[in-house]
C-alpha cells in the first residue's frame, strides 16, 4: 500500500486530512542508537592494553524518515512545504580502556582475559528548520536541543584469540549501560540530546582476521529499555520504549598498513511495540477555527467530523484534546549500510570517516484519538469561548519521536579521531 506521504502531489489534500500531526513530529535523534554500537574495523579486536581516547563528530541532515509501512517520507508531511529538515551534530568523546585488572592473580577466567571499559559522554546540538519550528510552536513545543547526552558505560571481557591457519578469531562479551542522568532532556522539546530512560544492552561480538588483511566484525546485542517517566513532546516520546535487538556485521580490507576501507550492515528492530501513555499533544490556541490561518485545521476537522456538523456558531470553532489512554505503535526497524575509510597516521593517531546509509526501515506511527468538543461562547467572558458539547472521538495518526521511535531515512556521517595518549 502506498503511503499518503509518498503519493503524487495532486493527492495532498487527502493526505493532510489523515496525517495532520505526523508531519511536524517526524524527528529523530539519529546517532543515539549507533553509538552504542560503532560499526567499523577492529571494533571488537583484542586491542593492545592501554587507554584510548577518541572523538567522533556525527553529522546528520534529516529530511526524510521511515513511516510504519517502510516508506521514506518527507519531514513536514505536507503541513509545511517540502524541504524541511533537522540538523543534528553530535560530538562523541569516547574513552576506552583495555587491560587486565586481575592479571597475575588467582582469579579464574578473568586473570587471563583482558577486560574492556568504555565511556561515551556525548555533547550535541540539534535543531529543526524554521517552518517545523513554527509549526511546533503552535503546540507550545520546541524543536531544538543542545547539551550533554546520556552517559554510556560499557564493561566487557575479551575471549582468547584463537588461530586456525590464516584465520584469527576472538570474542567479546560486554554490556552497555546508558545512564540518563546527565543528558539534556526537556519535556517540551521535540529534540533532546538525552533520552530520560535507562538502557542496558548485553552484547556478544566477534572479530576475525584472514590473511592479515581481511577483517570481519560482527555483533549481536539485546537492548533492554526501561520506562521513561516523563515522555517529552506532548507524550510522543514513548513512555515505555520497546526492547531492541541489534545486529551488525562489517568487513574491512587493509589496502596498505596505513589504509583500510570497510563496508558493513547494521540492523536493529524493536521487540514488540513502543507504548505511549496518555499523550497530551494539543494545540495551544483553542478554540481553533475551522478555517485558516491554522493550516491543519481544515483537514483535522474533516477528519474529525466525517458526519455533518450541527449548526455551529459563527465562526465555527472547536476544542480538541487527545483521548487519555495507552497507545502503541507497530514497532520500529532500521537497516543501514556502512562505508568507512581509516587512515593510520601514526600509532597514536587514527582517522576514520564513515557513512551510514539507510536502506530500509519502519518508523513509529500510531493512532491517537482526539475528543472534539464544540466551542460555545462564554457566558462570563464576552468574546471568549468555553468547551461545549462533546461531538465525537476521531482517530488521528501521529508519529512517535525520539531515539526509540523515529527512524531517519537520511544518511549519517561520522568522522572519528582516535588518539592513544600513551603512545608516542
Amino acid at each position, binding site marked *: 500500500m502506498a503511503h499518503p506521504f509518498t503519493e503524487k502531489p495532486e493527492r495532498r489534500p487527502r493526505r493532510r486530512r489523515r496525517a495532520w500531526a505526523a508531519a511536524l513530529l517526524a524527528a529523530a535523534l539519529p546517532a543515539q542508537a549507533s553509538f552504542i554500537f560503532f560499526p567499523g574495523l577492529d571494533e571488537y579486536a583484542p586491542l*593492545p*592494553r*592501554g*587507554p584510548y581516547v577518541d572523538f567522533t563528530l556525527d553529522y546528520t541532515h534529516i529530511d526524510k524518515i521511515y513511516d510504519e509501512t517502510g516508506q521514506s517520507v518527507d519531514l513536514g508531511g505536507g503541513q509545511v512545504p517540502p524541504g524541511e529538515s533537522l540538523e543534528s551534530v553530535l560530538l562523541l568523546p569516547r*574513552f576506552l*580502556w583495555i*587491560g587486565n*585488572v586481575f*592479571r*597475575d*592473580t588467582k582469579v579464574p577466567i578473568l586473570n587471563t582475559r583482558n*577486560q574492556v*571499559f568504555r*565511556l561515551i559522554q556525548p555533547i550535541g546540538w540539534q535543531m529543526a528548520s524554521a517552518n517545523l519550528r513554527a509549526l511546533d510552536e503552535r503546540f507550545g513545543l520546541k524543536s531544538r536541543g543542545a547539551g550533554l547526552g546520556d*552517559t554510556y*558505560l560499557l*564493561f566487557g571481557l575479551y575471549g582468547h*584469540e584463537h*588461530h586456525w*591457519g*590464516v*584465520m*584469527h578469531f576472538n570474542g567479546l562479551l560486554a554490556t552497555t*549501560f546508558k*545512564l540518563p*542522568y546527565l543528558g539534556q532532556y526537556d519535556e517540551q522539546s521535540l529534540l533532546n540530546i538525552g533520552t530520560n530512560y535507562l538502557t542496558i544492552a548485553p552484547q556478544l561480538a566477534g572479530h576475525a582476521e584472514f*590473511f*592479515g*588483511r581481511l577483517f570481519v566484525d560482527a555483533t549481536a546485542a539485546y537492548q533492554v529499555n526501561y520506562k521513561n517517566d516523563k515522555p517529552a513532546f506532548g507524550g510522543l516520546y514513548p513512555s515505555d520504549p520497546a526492547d531492541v535487538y541489534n545486529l551488525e556485521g562489517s568487513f574491512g580490507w*587493509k589496502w*596498505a*598498513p596505513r589504509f583500510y576501507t570497510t563496508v558493513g550492515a547494521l540492523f536493529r528492530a524493536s521487540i514488540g511495540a513502543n507504548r505511549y501513555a496518555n499523550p497530551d499533544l494539543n494545540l495551544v490556541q483553542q478554540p481553533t477555527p475551522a478555517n485558516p490561518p491554522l493550516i491543519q485545521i481544515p483537514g483535522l476537522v474533516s477528519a474529525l467530523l466525517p458526519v455533518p456538523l450541527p449548526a455551529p456558531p459563527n465562526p465555527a470553532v472547536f476544542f480538541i484534546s487527545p483521548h487519555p489512554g495507552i497507545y502503541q505503535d507497530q514497532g520500529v526497524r532500521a537497516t543501514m549500510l556502512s562505508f568507512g575509510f581509516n587512515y593510520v597516521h*601514526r*600509532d597514536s593517531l587514527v582517522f576514520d570517516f564513515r557513512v551510514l546509509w539507510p536502506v530500509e526501515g519502519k518508523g513509529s506511527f500510531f493512532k491517537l484519538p482526539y475528543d472534539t468538543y464544540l466551542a460555545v461562547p462564554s457566558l462570563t467572558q464576552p468574546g471568549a469561548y468555553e468547551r461545549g458539547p462533546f461531538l465525537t472521538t476521531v482517530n488521528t495518526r501521529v508519529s512517535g519521536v525520539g531515539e526509540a521511535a523515529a527512524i531517519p531515512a537520511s544518511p549519517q556521517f561520522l568522522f572519528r579521531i582516535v588518539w592513544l595518549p*600513551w*603512545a*608516542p
Partner: protein
Amino acid sequence: MGSVKTSSFLLLASLALSACLPRQTLLPALGIEVPVQRDFPADFKVPVSSETGQPVTGFGGGGGGVHRTPIILVHGNTEAPRFWNEARDWFLAHGYTHDEVWAVGYGYDCTCHFDSNDGAVPTIEAFVTAVQDYLRRKSGLPVAQVNIVAHSLGVTLVRQWMKQDNAWHRVRNFVAVAGANHGTWVSPPDAHGISRAGPLELYPDSPWLAQLNRGGETPGATRVLALYDGTGWYDVFFAPWQKDSPHLAGATNLAYNVEHPGAGLGHLELPREPQTLDVIADFIAAGGEPLPVDPPRLERDGDVVRAQPAGALARCAEDGEYPDARGAGAPQVDLQRGRLYTCFADDPESGLSSPMVRYLLAETGKTKTAAALEVHAAPAGGAFRDPQRIVLTSNEPDAYIVYTTSGIRPESGSPLYRAPIVINTGVTLKALAIAADGRRSAVLRQDYRIGADREGRP
C-alpha cells in the same frame, strides 16, 4: 528512586575509575600489594629491576635439575613474563625441567610507559648472572652459558645487552623472534611523551639501531635464529616494505609465514605457538651441549694472538668489525701493527667461547708518551629534556675509545666508539680510552637523565 540512581551511577563510575587507573598506582594507594608473577624458588636471589627498583618479575627454578643449557625467555614491549606461561608449559611438557626454563620481566608492565632497550639492559645482565649463579650453586656445574629466546623488543634488548656487556660468549643460542632489528614503521622518529625512548631507538635507520648493528649483526660464536613473519601482513609491526626487518645477517633466518604458507602467525603468536616452539627447540638442540671443559681464552704473545687450549680457534676482525664463528678460524692470528683487531677464542667442539678482546699494536717507530690518557664526553652528564648525542674524544687521536651505556665497566671488547652515541633514556655512560702502547685512561662516568628538567624531575 533518585538515591538509587545516584548510587548506581557512583558505583559504575567507581568501577570505571578503578579499572582505568594503572594498578601500580591504585592498589598501593589503597594499601594493597600489586599482584605480580614472581615464581622463583626461595633461595634464588631475585635481582632488582634497573627501571622500577623492585625485584624483577618472572619465573624459573623450582626443581628438576640442570641437564642442558637453561633457557631464558625475554618478552617484548609492555609485556610481562606471563606472556611466556604457555611456552613454559610447552617446554616442561617436552622434557625441560623447571630449573631449565626461566623468564625475566623488565620494564613497567604497563602500556602507559613503553619500555626502552637501553633502560632494561642492566636488568638482563643482572638476571642472567643471577640464573647462572643460582644454577651453579645448586648443581655444581659451570653453567657457562644460557640460551635466550626473545620476542619483539626483547630481541633488540638482548642484542644490546650482549654488545654492551660483551656477553656473546654467555649465550649459546639466541632465538630472535620478530625483533625490530632494522626498525619498525610504527616507531616514529619524532616520538614524544613518556613512551618515546623505545620508538626513538627503533625507528628505521635510527642512530640507535645503527650503533646496534655496527660491526656485525651476529658477532661471536652465538648461534642465532631469527624467526619472523616475512609476508608483511601477519605481523603488523613489519609492513610489506620492511618485512625483513627482523632478518639478521649471519643468523639462520626463517620467514615462517613465507616458508609455511597458511600458517598465518601474527606478532604475538610467532614465539609461542607449538609449531614454532618445535622449531625453536630443534634449533637449540642442534647446537649441542657444552662439554665439561673450561671456556677457551686468548693469549697474546708479541704480534701473535693464540687461542688456548689446543683445539680452540682465534677469530679476529679488523677495523672495528666483530668476528663471528662462520669463517675458518685459526689457532693463532698474526697482528699487524697500526691495525685494530677485535678477537675472541672459539672452541668448536664445546661451543664455548671467550669474551671479545681488542688489540692495537703501535706502529713501528712510534715513540711512547708518558702523558696521561684522557677521555671526555660532550655534553657532560646531567638532566636533559631531549635525547642527546654524546661525542667522546681522547687527548690522543690514535687511541681507541670503548664505552658502555649499561653501567658496566668498559673493557677492550666493549663497543667501539666510532660515531656519536645517541641516548634516548636515562643511562650511565662509561668510557675508556686505550692507546696502542697499552696505556688506559681512567674510566669516565657520566650519568644522563633524559626527559627531565634541569633539576632532574621527569
